[in-house]
């Protein structure tokens, strides 16, 4: 295949195809979303899971069955999937399982700036860090191979600038050959009761030690540059910034950042006059080097925040503490589309002075003027629990103003257990849960989910989750469905009645996202013209 100009995400998808991945699964999250969409376009088998934990469990099952799996998520998705991860490293896998986790330094589209490298260390999962599109391709293939060979799930840590940057990619001409899937029983290896988990933990550490000693790990280290008066140890895209900021300097890129090639780092530091660690986010490489008594310099605390770039790296290298330049005017913040159905909802919530426990999606923009109708937003699904907690704590007149607001995709993701809690431990004033059902996962770019009744490819799915029926089955007695735009007055009446009722109410505010409707219509027209 000729070279292509690909984003990091597209390169991962191409590598998944060339690396014989039999199933790709994940939950949408900027900046990771396009990987599975591209994998589907290329002809791979790709599907959205309700959340990242389920996705990782499905991927793990695939890999137990001696087939290759790719699981994708954004950094905060790994919090949801962490329960599976921390035991998946104990059980190990029979074939390649690669977990692509996309960090977002600078929080371009995220609620925090967490550093996934900490998860690799904490869970014991090996981790590779590509710094551009070619490496995203090469390291995905490598991660699949290492996972299969050392029988451990491997994390491929991306960042926004790797996911969404384009660069030249040379891909393999031949697809990887993997054995046909088969189940080989290994009860002590796969059933994590304490008696089996204790040896499994020892086995994990042995596998990591074997990996660290291997030729394959050594091959991932790159070292270049002639000027030994300055040595730089850098990972991911930070290495590209460092190369630009100090073109001649000797540069060590570990490639594999868990387990770290600590002896290679020691030898490197010994042969340069000054050794500086350049990394985005937490001082992960720096702390590991210092703990191993390797004489390296780190970065001032302010460079823990936000992304690095060549200019910021220059500042770190030269000890420049002057203020960084800022734009003469702020950019324009995002806002709800002019024809978005959420607008009506947030106007109504603001009018009734609701205390809104919010959630994550386009509708989080309800916090912006002119609405300013969101009081909390923490993590996926938190609206339900936080709203219930507020209801439990507040005096009745304030408690009755509390409304939990969640989108359809987020409700399926982690709102469902919240609904069970609402039915099980109802506040004395009852509660109001509002599902803003726009029939898509809008904020990440209009992805499908179990509630849309369509697969990742937008073709019909075999089922469609019915929120109203689920709520009734869980014991919520007052369940209403309303179009908040077409039936604005009815919506307002339902809301005010529910707030005064001291009972548990679910209101499904159903109004399809106009962007998704147009895209779906175009897709269906295309399907008809093809058939």
């Amino acid at each position: 295949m000729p070279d292509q100009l690909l984003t990091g995400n597209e390169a991962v998808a191409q590598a998944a195809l060339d690396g014989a991945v039999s199933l790709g699964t994940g939950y949408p999250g900027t900046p990771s979303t396009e990987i599975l969409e591209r994998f589907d376009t290329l002809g791979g088998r790709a599907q959205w899971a309700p959340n990242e934990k389920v996705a990782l469990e499905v991927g793990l099952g695939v890999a137990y069955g001696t087939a290759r799996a790719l699981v994708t998520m954004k950094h905060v998705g790994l919090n949801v999937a962490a329960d599976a991860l921390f035991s998946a490293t104990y059980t190990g896998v029979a074939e390649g399982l690669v977990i692509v986790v996309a960090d977002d330094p600078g929080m371009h589209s995220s609620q925090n700036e967490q550093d996934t490298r900490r998860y690799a260390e904490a869970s014991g999962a090996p981790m590779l860090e590509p710094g551009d599109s070619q490496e995203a391709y090469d390291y995905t293939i490598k991660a699949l191979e290492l996972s299969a060979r050392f029988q451990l799930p491997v994390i491929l840590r991306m960042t926004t600038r790797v996911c969404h940057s384009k660069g030249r990619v040379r891909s393999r001409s031949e697809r990887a050959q993997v054995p046909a899937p088969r189940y080989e029983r290994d009860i002590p290896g796969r059933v994590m009761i304490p008696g089996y988990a204790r040896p499994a933990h020892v086995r994990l550490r042995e596998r990591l030690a074997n990996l660290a000693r291997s030729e394959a790990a050594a091959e991932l280290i790159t070292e270049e540059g002639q000027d030994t008066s300055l040595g730089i140890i850098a990972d991911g895209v930070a290495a590209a910034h460092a190369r630009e900021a100090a073109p001649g300097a000797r540069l060590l890129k570990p490639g594999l950042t868990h387990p770290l090639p600590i002896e290679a780092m020691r030898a490197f530091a010994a042969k340069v006059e000054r050794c500086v660690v350049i990394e985005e986010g937490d001082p992960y490489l720096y702390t590991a080097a210092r703990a191993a008594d390797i004489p390296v310099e780190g970065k001032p605390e302010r460079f823990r925040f936000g992304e690095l770039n060549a200019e910021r790296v220059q500042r770190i290298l030269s000890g420049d503490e002057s203020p960084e330049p800022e734009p003469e005017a702020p950019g324009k913040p995002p806002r709800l589309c002019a024809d978005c159905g959420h607008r009506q909802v947030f106007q109504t919530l603001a009018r009734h002075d609701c205390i809104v426990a919010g959630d994550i999606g386009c509708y989080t923009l309800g916090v912006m003027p002119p609405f300013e109708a969101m009081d909390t937003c923490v993590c996926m699904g938190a609206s339900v629990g936080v709203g219930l907690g507020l209801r439990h704590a507040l005096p009745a007149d304030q408690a009755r103003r509390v409304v939990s607001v969640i989108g359809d995709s987020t409700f399926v993701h982690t709102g469902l257990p919240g609904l069970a809690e609402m039915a099980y431990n109802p506040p004395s004033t009852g509660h109001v849960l509002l599902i803003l059902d726009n029939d898509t996962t809008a904020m990440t770019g209009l992805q499908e989910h179990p509630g849309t009744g369509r697969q990742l490819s937008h073709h019909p799915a075999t089922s469609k989750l019915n929120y109203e029926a689920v709520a009734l089955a869980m014991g919520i007695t007052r369940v209403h469905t309303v179009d908040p735009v077409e039936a604005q007055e009815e919506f307002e009446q339902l809301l005010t009645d529910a707030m005064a009722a001291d009972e548990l109410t679910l209101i499904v505010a159903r109004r399809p996202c106009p962007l998704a409707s147009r895209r779906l219509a175009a897709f269906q027209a295309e399907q008809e013209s093809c058939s």
Partner: protein
Amino acid sequence: MSDGHGVTNIVIAGLGGQGIVTGSDILAQAAFLAGYDVKKSEIHGMSQRGGSVSSDIRFGPRVHSPMVPHAQADFLIISESSQVLPNRHRLAPRGRLITPDAVPQLFQGDASQHAARMINVALLGVLSAHLDISETHWMDAIRGQLPEKLQAMNLHAFRQARGIEALFGTLTGEVRPRPTA
């Protein structure tokens, strides 16, 4: 025009929905087809909802970082006038600012509404007169990045804008003075 390593730095900025990402994809693909090493970078996500969007494109013999360093953009292309101030600091002291003012004749009369949807491609046409990328590569890049039904009118807008400099014999990009402190 380029930095000491032969790398040309371009920033395209505007608002979500203006085709900033598509425009930067066309530019990156044209440079790629011309045989350059290319890196392109932008921020997606929240910016999809009408907010500020900007994309960095760099090409030359060898490009490392995907981000145009501070105040090193050789060209700053702005598709919406409100976005000049938030992005002007990206421009190199001798860099060129290209705004819709560069192509006023495309926005007159009946064609104006049509042209507004092709502003990204028209501005690339203005830019193209300053870059060492052949018209064939530009045309191939536009065809490769746009759906078939939009290709003809975009190719036309591109050619018109590309010819503006020749027609008037003047610099089409406008450089606004930096504010004095």
